[in-house]
C-alpha cells in the first residue's frame, strides 16, 4: 500500500530564503537607525563641546565655528527664505496645472502634457543650479538692476519652485481625481459652471491631499542642495532679504564637506548637527503628509 504523508514538511531551503528576504526587508529599518545613530553620535560630540550650548545654537544668528559662533539661524534664515519662495511659486502654479490636467484636459492632451512634466521632474538638480545662476540671475539683474547680487536667494528659490512644481502638481492631481464623479455631477446639475465646480466643490474635497502635496513640497525644498549651493551664495548670512546672498543648511554642508575635513574637528561634528536637524525636520514633514494621505484615502474608498 502506498503511504502518502501529506503533512507539511520542514524545508530548510525555504526557510533560509524566507530569512534572507526578511533581512532584505529589515535593512531599511537599519538604514534609518544608522542615520539616527551616526548623525546623533557626531551631533552629541558637537553639543558636548564646552563652547556650544543649546541656547546659543538655537538662538544665535552668527555661524562661524572657527571663532566660537554657533548660531544656526544664520543658516536657517536662508533655508526658510528659499523654501518660502519656492513654495510661493510652486503651490499656486502646481495647483493650477493639476486642476487643468484633472478637470479640463482631454485624454489626448493629458497624454502629451504629463510626460513633459515628468521630464521637468527628472532633470538633475545640478542642471537647475546652472539654470539659476546663468539664466535666471542675469534676467533678474536686467529687470531689477545691480541691486540683485550675483548669488542671491531669489533666483535659487524661483528655480527651486520650478523644480518642485511637477511634484506638487502630480500629487494634487491624484488627490483631485480621487474625488468621486458624483460630487461634480451634483454641482453641474445645480447649474454650476466648470470653474465653480472645480474651485468650490472638487478643490475643497481634495484639500487634505493637496495639503499632503504642500508638506512634501516643503520637505523637498528644505532638503534641496545643489540649486542653493550653486546659486544662493557661499557664506552664512542672517538675512531674509531675497536679493542678498546667503547660505542654506544644505548648501553649508555641501561646501564645508567638499574640502578635506579632519575627523572630530568642530567643523566636522557641526555638519552632523545640521544634518540631524535637517533629517528630523523632513522626517516629521513626511510622516505628517503620509498620515494625511492615508486618512484621506480611507474616506472615499
Amino acid at each position: 500500500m502506498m503511504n502518502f504523508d501529506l503533512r507539511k514538511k520542514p524545508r530548510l531551503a525555504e526557510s533560509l530564503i524566507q530569512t534572507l528576504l526578511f533581512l532584505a526587508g529589515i535593512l531599511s529599518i537599519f538604514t534609518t537607525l544608522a542615520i539616527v545613530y551616526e548623525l546623533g553620535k557626531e551631533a552629541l560630540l558637537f553639543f558636548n563641546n564646552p563652547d556650544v550650548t543649546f541656547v546659543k545654537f538655537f538662538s544665535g544668528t552668527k555661524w562661524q565655528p572657527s571663532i566660537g559662533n554657533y548660531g544656526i539661524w544664520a543658516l536657517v534664515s536662508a533655508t526658510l527664505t528659499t523654501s518660502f519662495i519656492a513654495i510661493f511659486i510652486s503651490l499656486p502654479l502646481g495647483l493650477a496645472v493639476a486642476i487643468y490636467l484633472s478637470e479640463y484636459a482631454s485624454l489626448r492632451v493629458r497624454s502629451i502634457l504629463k510626460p513633459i512634466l515628468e521630464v521637468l521632474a527628472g532633470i538633475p538638480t545640478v542642471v537647475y543650479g546652472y539654470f539659476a545662476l546663468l539664466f535666471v540671475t542675469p534676467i533678474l539683474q536686467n529687470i531689477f538692476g545691480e541691486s540683485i547680487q550675483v548669488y542671491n536667494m531669489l533666483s535659487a528659490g524661483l528655480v527651486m519652485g520650478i523644480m518642485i512644481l511637477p511634484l506638487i502638481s502630480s500629487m494634487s492631481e491624484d488627490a483631485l481625481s480621487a474625488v468621486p464623479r458624483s460630487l461634480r455631477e451634483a454641482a453641474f446639475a445645480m447649474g454650476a459652471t466648470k470653474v465653480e465646480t472645480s474651485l468650490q466643490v472638487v478643490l475643497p474635497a481634495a484639500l487634505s491631499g493637496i495639503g499632503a502635496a504642500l508638506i512634501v513640497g516643503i520637505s523637498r525644498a528644505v532638503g534641496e542642495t545643489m540649486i542653493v549651493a550653486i546659486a544662493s551664495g557661499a557664506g552664512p548670512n542672517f538675512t531674509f532679504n531675497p536679493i542678498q546672498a546667503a547660505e542654506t543648511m544644505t548648501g553649508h554642508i555641501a561646501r564645508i564637506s567638499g574640502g578635506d575635513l579632519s575627523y572630530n574637528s568642530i567643523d566636522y561634528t557641526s555638519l552632523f548637527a545640521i544634518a540631524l536637524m535637517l533629517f528630523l525636520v523632513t522626517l516629521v514633514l513626511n510622516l505628517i503628509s503620509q498620515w494625511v494621505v492615508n486618512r484621506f484615502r480611507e474616506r472615499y474608498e
Partner: protein
Amino acid sequence: MQNHFPENEAFYKALSKRYGIATVWQILFLSALLLAILSLTALIYNVIDGAFGYIAYEYKNDPSEFTSTPINELTKEELLTILKNNLSTGAYKKLDNEQAMSTRSQADLLNLFLERLIQIDTKQTWSMTESILKGEKIRQETKTNYPEARIEFRSWLTPQFLVSPMSSKAEFAGVRTAVLGSLWLVGIAIAFALPIGTGAAVYLQEYAPKNWLTSIIQTNINNLAGVPSIVYGMLGLAVFVRWLEPFTSGSMFGITDTNGRTILSAGLTMGILVLPLIIINAQEAIKAVPDSLRQASFGVGATRWQTVWHHVLPNALPGILTGSILALSRALGETAPLIVVGASTFISVDPDGPFSKFTALPIQIYQWTTRAQSEFHAIAASGIIVLLVLLLTLNATAILLRNRFKQKY
C-alpha cells in the same frame, strides 16, 4: 411671495458674468501649464545656448616657432616629431604612459600641441544667441580689445570633449573620467540595491504577515524615500568612508594608496539612496501580478518560494526593471551625496576599479558651473547636454520596456 431667484435681464447678466469669470480662471490654469512648459524650454535653450558660440583667444607661443606648416595641415607624423622635440622628456614619457603616442589620433595630437606648446589663452567667450545676433559687433570689439586675438565659432561639445580626460584648461577638458566614474558608481549602486530591493519587495508583498513590524517597515521605506539626499551623503561619510575604511579603501585587500573616499564608498551610498525607490517600484510591479497565478501555483502543490520564483517574479520582471532604470537615472543625476562622500576635485586618470578615487559627471558640471571664467560655463553646458542625453536614453529604454512587456490580465 417674493422671488429671490434673479429673473430675465438680471439673470442673464449674472450668468454672463459667471461665464466671464470662468473664462478668466481657465486662462489662468492654462497659463500656469504654459509657464511650466516655458521654463523647461528656457532651461534647455539656456544649456544649448551655452555650449556653442564665439571664442576669442590668443596664442601664447607663435606656431611658427615650432613649424612652418599651417596648424590645420599638420600630419600625424609631423605632430609627433614636434611634440617629441619640444616637450620635456618627463612630460612626453608621462603622456606616452597614459596612451602610447604613436597610437593616438591626429586630432588628439593636435590638441596636445595646442595645449602644451602653443598654449591657448582664452580672452572671452560668447553664447550662441549673442554670436548669431551680434556677430559683427563681437568681431569689432575683439579687434579693438585684443588686437592679437583670433576669433572663431566653436562648438564646445565635440567628440574630443567626450573622450578627453579632465584638464585645467577648459578648451581641452573632457568628460571621459567623469562619465566612467559615473558608470562605475551607478553600476555598484544597482548591483547592491537591485537584489536587496527586490528581495525586500518580495518579502513585503508575498511573505510579510500583517502586523506592526510590517507596517513599520513599510512606513519607514516611504519615509526613507523622502530623506534629503545630502543626509545620505552624511551617512555614507560616517559609515562607508570612515567606519568601513579598511574595506572601502581596499587596504583589506592590499591596496594602500587610497583612503575611504573611493568609488566603492560612493557607490554604496548611492545604493542605499536608491534602495527605497527600487523597493517601492518592485512592490507595485509584484502587486500587479494577479492572485489567480499564485493560487494556480499553490493549487498544484508548489511551495511559496517556487511560486514566487517561477510565477510572480517572471511576471513582475519588466516592472521591476523599469523601476530600476528609473532609480538608476536618479543615481546618475545625484550630486550632493557625492560631494559629501568626497569626490575628487581634480582627477585626470580613468578609474581602474572600485578602490580608485573618483569624480562623476554631475560633480564636474557643478565644479565647472561654479568657476568664474565663462569658458568653464561653456563646458559645463556641454557636460549637461551629455548628462541629459544619457538620462533621456535611460528613460526611453524604461518606457520601451514598459510598453513592450505590458501584460493585460
